[in-house]
């Protein structure tokens, strides 16, 4: 980079102005060039509200559809259609879910609700479990995991159930795009590796 004296016409500049311009010159040198924006970023988002949607694991569409239908059928069978309608109203005010994922297993179902990421970078989640067996062992528990290629990879929180319906709130800081689904595992006392899967998306 040429020197300030080479680059700027200083005629008529008073000392104060020249000092400020020299400071700008130094900052430009220090900052370096701004990057070229890629085409994908040239225009502002036209519908920023859509960006509010949670980007959650990209399940294959067919698998997602089958899972949703299966889970919905199980929920209806277990609780009747009135449950869903009545319950949805109360839940809407208690947890600002942007996305709901059904989970299913043997006679058990769950709804995993995802809220937008908070200011600290955490994704609040609410997991409502129905018909999951209670644990006779007081030290046993269940654990929610994010999966990659179907394998439990990232722990999302542990919990116990003691009723036909149990609702727990969890929060994780992960980038969901790195994963492909969730599972709930049954964890024996003292075992920290993923146990048998009891619910899956």
């Amino acid at each position, binding site marked *: 980079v040429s020197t300030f004296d080479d680059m700027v016409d200083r005629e008529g*500049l008073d000392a104060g102005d020249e000092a400020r311009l020299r*400071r*700008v010159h130094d*900052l430009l040198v220090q900052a370096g060039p701004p990057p070229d924006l890629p085409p994908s*970023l040239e225009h502002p988002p036209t519908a*920023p509200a859509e*960006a509010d949607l949670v980007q959650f694991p990209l399940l294959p569409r067919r698998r997602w559809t089958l899972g949703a239908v299966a889970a919905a059928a199980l929920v209806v069978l277990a609780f009747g259609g009135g449950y869903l309608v009545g319950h949805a109203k109360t839940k809407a005010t208690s947890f600002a879910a942007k996305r709901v994922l059904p989970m299913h297993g043997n006679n058990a179902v769950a709804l995993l609700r995802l809220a937008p*990421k908070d200011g600290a970078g955490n994704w609040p989640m609410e997991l409502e479990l129905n018909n999951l067996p209670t644990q006779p062992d007081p030290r046993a528990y269940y654990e929610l995991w994010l999966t990659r290629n179907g394998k439990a990879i990232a722990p999302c929180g542990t919990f116990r159930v003691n009723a036909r319906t149990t609702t727990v709130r969890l929060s994780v800081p992960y*980038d969901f795009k790195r994963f492909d689904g969730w599972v709930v595992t049954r964890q024996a006392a003292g075992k920290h590796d993923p146990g048998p899967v009891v619910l899956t998306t």
Partner: protein
Amino acid sequence: MRLVTTDGELIERAATGDHSAFEDLYRRYARPVFGLALRRLGDRGRAEDAVQETFASIWRSAASYRPERGPGAPWLYAVARNAIVDRARSRGEIPSEIPDTAADAPGPSDRVEQGWVAWRVHRALEELTEREREVVALAYWSGLSQSEVAEFLSIPLGTVKTRTRAALAKLSEILGDDLQ
């Protein structure tokens, strides 16, 4: 005196759902955010994702901005920093060189200071006219001498120097207290 809408005013308007204010913020900050993300992540694809995430966060959390706590640029920097740190963490990296806040106090390293300086300068460049930006880019980052810039633009050398001075003066006005 510059009669432009401040960043803080745009954030407050965006908090009320004003899309045009959000778009103005994007025009001012897309390049600084992308530059910061590129410097930290070193990957254009992930930097693009970080920019998208940053502006989604701005839209979501604009209501949390408190003008009495300071101007908009440091708040925007903090939001961008969080989005970029998220990206870095997703690859198991420890994002150490991006400061938690855009404090005026000297940073723990030259790299920290470098990021904040680039953020402010690149933001200020967005307010120059196309012609002013062109002469600054050629003079500072093209590797051309002033005579070569004059030849490239087909204008006299004196005009190059005059335009450079005018651009620096405008940047000085935009950067304001940041020059202290």
